[in-house]
């Protein structure tokens, strides 16, 4: 798993040191994930609650016959979800042989980030538990938190 997370942002680095990410928002914060892992982005499907599952599991959805677990990052990150249901999306990832989705408030865009714009997390936060944040990217005036999906799955 360690190796996998190290590779996390190398996958789609092009030769000119760029990485393509999908940017989205959770509450007031903006996040991004490597586009290599994104399988598809969907409108909110009917989510079936899974009793007795961990609390950050929102439930499961049917994605063309496949059962996909949906992770609720709001409870996981302690964020208040936006009221606007209309813009909410599910981003489905393919991580190794596993498929999983997350609910986000809004998917904003696909961005190319230069590696130089990405700062290692531990230089920004120090004391907080930010295992799942791979780094922080500065794009114009925005700050994007790069998610480490493998850490979230653990």
């Amino acid at each position, binding site marked *: 798993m360690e190796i996998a997370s190290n590779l996390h942002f190398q996958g789609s680095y092009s030769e000119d040191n760029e990485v393509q990410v999908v940017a989205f928002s959770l509450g007031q914060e903006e996040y991004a994930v490597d586009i290599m892992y994104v399988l598809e982005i969907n409108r909110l499907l*009917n989510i079936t*609650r*899974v*009793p*007795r*599952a961990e609390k950050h*599991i929102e439930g*499961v959805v049917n994605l063309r016959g496949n*059962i996909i*677990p949906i992770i609720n990052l709001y409870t996981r990150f302690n964020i208040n979800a936006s009221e606007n249901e209309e813009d909410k999306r599910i981003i489905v990832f393919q991580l190794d042989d596993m498929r999983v989705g997350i609910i986000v408030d809004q998917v904003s865009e696909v961005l190319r980030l230069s590696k130089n714009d990405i700062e290692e997390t531990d230089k920004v936060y120090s004391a907080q538990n930010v295992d799942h944040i791979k780094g922080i990217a500065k794009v114009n005036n925005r700050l994007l938190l790069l998610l480490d999906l493998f850490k979230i799955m653990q």
Partner: protein
Amino acid sequence: MKMDMSQYLDVFLEESKEHLGSLNHKLLDLEKNTDDISALNEIFRAAHTLKGMSSTMGFEDLADLTHHMENVLTDLKEGMLAVDSSVVDILFQCFDRMQLLIDQIESTNSGKMDNSDLVAVLENINTGKSEAASISDNASKEAEENSSSAGVNFVDDNSFDFNQYDITVLKEAISRGFRIYYIIIEVDKGCLMKAVRAFMVFRALEEDSEIIKAVPPAQEIEDGAFEGEFELFITSQVNLPDIENRLSNISEVRVKEIREIDLSSITARKVSIAASTKAAGINNKLEQLEPKKTQKSKQTVRVDIDRLDNLMNLVGELVMHKGRLEQIGANNKIGELNETIEQIDRISTDLQAVVMKVRMVPIEQVFNRFPRMVRDLAKDLKKDVEFLIEGKETELDRTVIDEIGDPLVHLLRNAIDHGLESPQIREQNGKPQQGTLILRARHEGNNVYIEVEDDGAGINTARVLEKAVEKGIIDSREAEQMSQEEAIELLFSSGFSTAQSISDLSGRGVGLDVVKSKIESLSGEIFVDSTLGKGTKFRIKLPLTLAIIQALMIAVRDEIYAVPLSSVDETTLINKNDIKMVQNQEVIMLRGTVLPLFRLKSLLSIPGNDSEEQEMYVVVVRKAEKQIGLVVDTLIGQQEIVIKSLGKILSGIPGLAGAIVAGDGNVRLILDIVTLF
């Protein structure tokens, strides 16, 4: 240059295992009935194929061993060697070694193994009878080969086969007074138009004779694709000199050999060689062989099980969307659509059935390895066992087939080790010396039953109780109160083994409890019927498939769940006032028995509010041997569902067995009764 064979390795492994299986199987047949020529032929064929395959793949040690084995088999076939227990034992040893080799190839990809020990034994057998072989002159040897013809090799090499059809033709010809001639035609070396000469030969013969067989095949001969000479078998009413005459008139062609073959005399000779055979005419022999020869191998394609699962998924989805289409048609009252939907409905139902069928495999696959195992075990334990297999054509889902082997091995071992008595004891007890062990499979509704039945000593419940107390599973007071059934049930508790002595076979710490849990993991059940002194019968009940099951759909508040019908005993409506509290547990009296009640909404903390109704639905489910009532809001109905896994992240949640995609596209969860409470 050596070709890269690695891509064929999987196929090689699969096929060699299959061939080995049939080798073992057929040798057992042969051991039982030493005159069973078709079994011997089958063995020969399988060994020959294995030899070819292994040498192609470059596994020389395997090829070499098979080659030496083949020599012995050839002798058996030609009657140079009698089928006796020593030969059979050696052959079995060879099969074991081959199994070992194949396993090694599978795990390490190396086919290196020293088989010189076995090869030496095989060669010994081979040379031991070689004098006999050299005595018989060439002609009679050939004749012998002809006689064993019932579908086997002819003449000097293996390239000549008489098939069933040919034999029938030959028989027919003889009965109508035709004669059979064997001719070798030699064409001049300098001949420029071999094909033309061959054609002339054919024409000359076909005037009043029929060519039954040609080596090489007639088509190749007519194309001139032969070296110097070719062989023919013809049936004719014409005299031998006439034919010879006619042929010698063709230029550049010489009759190298022409000879009449008399099938009946050949048969007679063959019978005298195979000592144990009763004197019988060729006709009897052939008729006897015919039914056995009819088992033709089916044409098959090997498919990765993942692809089948994929197909199953797609079909499941199709079925689901069909449901939605129906809904749309009904909502909008589109008459035209109905007809099409009906068609789609029919097709998708058929498709579903076909896909299910594809996943089904005859249980033969598992059963086939048992006769050998039982034979060896019985020999080791000095027991005389007649092993019968019934219903091996019964089909089961592939996933179940893969898992059921081990539990059955265990039950069979138990039966031979603990169940069946030794011949002496059996005789003392007035039973036939030979014990009977039956392995039986059959369909019944949506289930498959597999039974392991022996006519041995039966389960001594007194001894079981004694043992259970000794092992501390129960105390002596409990033991006194236990019924016969409860005592037998103890066999399945962990750490129990009734064997007096720990033998090599059973009693190795893996008990019936493992068998039971395995079967339960396959959504099956196991029952025991036993009569002291008469025998024991283990019955395993398994679902036909694990992929599609019948389920009862129920609703609680806003949530819908599926309960596998296999764990539902009944549903009932109860009155709230009838619920009593016993030790802080809600119970109700159902036909005289106390039924503990659980509310699904609290078990699964289902959110929402509702007013308590006066009457409520209870689904009576079975967990192990106990009944439990599950209180739900609504019973929706019975439905066939396609089970899907919840995936890695959500695996192992107690109470959940998987998920389904319902007709409306929503995911519904399947309850697992065993882990729910």
